[in-house]
């Protein structure tokens, strides 16, 4: 390691100090503040911390980041490897630096990266592997349009060479298009299971026009949103050949989106030289990340929390609840803080019309009234509540309470139920 200058050493010392203080006094800020302090002292800290690390894996995309990172972590740790990841989902530069500072001697670093932050991270850090999960409309007020993100990604990823492997969801036409333009090594994963096709296209789709020529794509079938078996009848842009499909691995948890997360993680593991039987074995030990299909028990009642923060994620959560053997009331918690997006318009893109048969709907959160109006026009009449605990008395024995919260709402719900927001 090259000799660090004073500024860098100070950045690391102060960052670590904040980390220790935060932990000792349970300030709950350990995921971002150590990195924030270190970045203020040494803005190039990420480059310095990462330049001697051989194995860095980044995961970016609208949905599935936290679960995919945790799956990769599970598989690598199962090999006995030293792994560090940003488990709390703090996925801006300060979160990534904080994770580095927390454990500086790991061999493998796995980070989820916020969509808008990815181009900046790539200026300082050249990953061994980068996973692109999917791109859907999400927090328009913060991220802008899907196309804007895709364009910025293409520019940022175009700078990577063959030292980096980019692992891409082949079922997302826009990501496949990005893959076709890169100098880096590219590998693809995708579903191959027509039994999971939706009967018809959902409303919440983003890339249904060819990213190459602009003509409407045709779909032999869709799994959800615009993820599916697409084709362009007009130009030479064709779906890439997949390196891993749903024939190869099965998901350890419910939900079709978790099959994608599983395939992405398995392909990362394969790229790192782990054999398929080890990957399968490791996945049987997987436990969900906080708020992502997480099960908790409170007052003897079973509760499943499914983070639902954009139309596509929400639709898939509802589909998972409907398909589950676990029945029970459903609580939707809608907030409009900055991590949720100030704009709650997106709830009108969720297909509640298909889910009128759930036994009982409850709504809560800062925008509970907006959600109640949304449900009213789907002919669903929810009960508005103020505290999550009010619902518990409505959960029968052998039932599960399903909670579908936005991001800050998920933290509030966990705080109310188990006394802590994140880990």
């Amino acid at each position, binding site marked *: 390691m090259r000799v660090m200058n004073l500024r860098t050493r100070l950045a690391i010392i102060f960052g670590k100090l904040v980390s220790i203080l935060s932990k000792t006094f349970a300030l709950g800020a350990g995921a971002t503040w150590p990195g924030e302090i270190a970045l203020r002292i040494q803005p190039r800290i990420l480059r310095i911390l990462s330049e001697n690390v051989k194995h860095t894996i980044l995961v970016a995309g609208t949905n599935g980041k936290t679960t995919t990172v945790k799956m990769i972590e599970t598989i690598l740790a199962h090999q006995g490897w030293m792994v560090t990841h940003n488990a709390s989902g703090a996925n801006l530069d300060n979160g990534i630096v904080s994770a580095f500072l927390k454990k500086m001697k790991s061999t493998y670093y796995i980070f989820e990266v916020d969509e808008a932050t990815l181009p900046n991270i790539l200026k300082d850090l050249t990953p061994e592997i980068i996973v692109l999960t999917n791109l859907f409309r999400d927090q328009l007020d913060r991220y802008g349009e899907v196309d804007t993100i895709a364009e910025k990604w293409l520019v940022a990823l175009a700078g990577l060479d063959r030292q980096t492997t980019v692992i891409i969801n082949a079922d997302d036409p826009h990501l496949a298009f990005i893959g076709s333009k890169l100098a880096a090594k590219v590998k693809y994963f995708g579903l191959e299971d027509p039994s999971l096709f939706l009967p018809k296209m959902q409303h919440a789709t983003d890339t249904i026009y060819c990213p190459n020529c602009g003509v409407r794509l045709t779909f032999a079938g869709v799994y959800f949103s615009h993820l599916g078996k697409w084709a362009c009848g007009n130009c030479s842009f064709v779906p890439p050949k997949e390196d891993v499909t749903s024939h190869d691995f099965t998901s350890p948890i419910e939900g079709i989106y978790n099959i994608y997360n599983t395939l992405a993680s398995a392909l990362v593991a394969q790229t790192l030289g782990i054999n398929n039987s080890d990957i399968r074995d490791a996945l049987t030990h997987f436990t969900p990340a906080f708020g992502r299909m997480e099960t908790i028990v409170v007052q003897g009642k079973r509760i499943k929390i499914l983070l639902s923060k954009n139309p596509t994620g929400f639709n898939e959560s509802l589909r998972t609840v409907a398909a589950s053997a676990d029945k029970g009331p459903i609580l939707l918690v809608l907030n409009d803080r900055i991590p949720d997006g*100030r704009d709650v318009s*997106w709830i009108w893109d969720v297909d509640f019309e298909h889910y009128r048969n759930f036994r009982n709907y409850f709504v809560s959160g800062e925008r509970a*009234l907006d959600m*109640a109006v949304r449900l009213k*026009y789907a002919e669903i009449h929810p009960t508005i509540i103020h505290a999550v605990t009010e619902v518990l008395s409505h959960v029968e024995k052998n039932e599960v309470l399903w909670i579908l919260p936005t991001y800050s709402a998920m933290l509030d719900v966990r705080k109310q139920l188990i006394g802590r927001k994140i880990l």
Partner: protein
Amino acid sequence: MKLTIGWLYPELMSTYGDRGNIFVLTKRCEWRKIKVDTKTIDFKTKSAEIETCDMIFGGGAQDRQQGILVNDLREKKGPVLKKMFDRGIPGLFVCGAPQLLGHYYMTGEGKKLEGLGIFDMVSKHFGKSKPRCIGNTIGKLPDGKTIVGFENHGGRTYLGKGVKPFAKIIKGCGNNGEDGTEGAVYKNCIATYSHGPFLPKNPHIADWLIAKALEIKYKKKIPLKPLDDTLEWQAHEAVLRRFT
């Protein structure tokens, strides 16, 4: 009774919950036993089919999507829509609509994009010199009632003499953040910078559109049966309370 609502390019002009407006119009008609037929207006739709519509709705489009449809909309749909709006057919255009419906839209790079020219107004993007307008909005209508919404636009719109402002902006940026206007009204056609689901929390505007559509179609005023809008007004007032 029956109404046909024409929905402009639903696949391309649906950025963020825009279809909420269609859901609200449809349900509020159905709850009053008025049948609704929603007709998609896209590349294939002929003028004669468009003319069967009693109301027109247009949502917001992302830049790439707008690029795909703008020529078709201006050249093949523009003239017939203008004729219908002149006849009093009501319309609702949300989001970037003011930029599309006016004479032109000057992009941040100084490129002049010709609009439909139905509304007497022009729009201009000032590049980085003026920030994007993002946030909750509240407006006051000429009759004193309020409207609530959420705006998210980079361009600024300036009204000519041929249109009236839709509302006076109380909270937010509105058309340009300078003259206090929000949106525009031409005959029975409303353009607003509120994006996405504008009607759910503004049931009075939804009913105004429905009433106008019925009046033009059946050539007489048809009183609308009142609905229980307690929930909608609670949501409306929650926005007024939080953001004023």
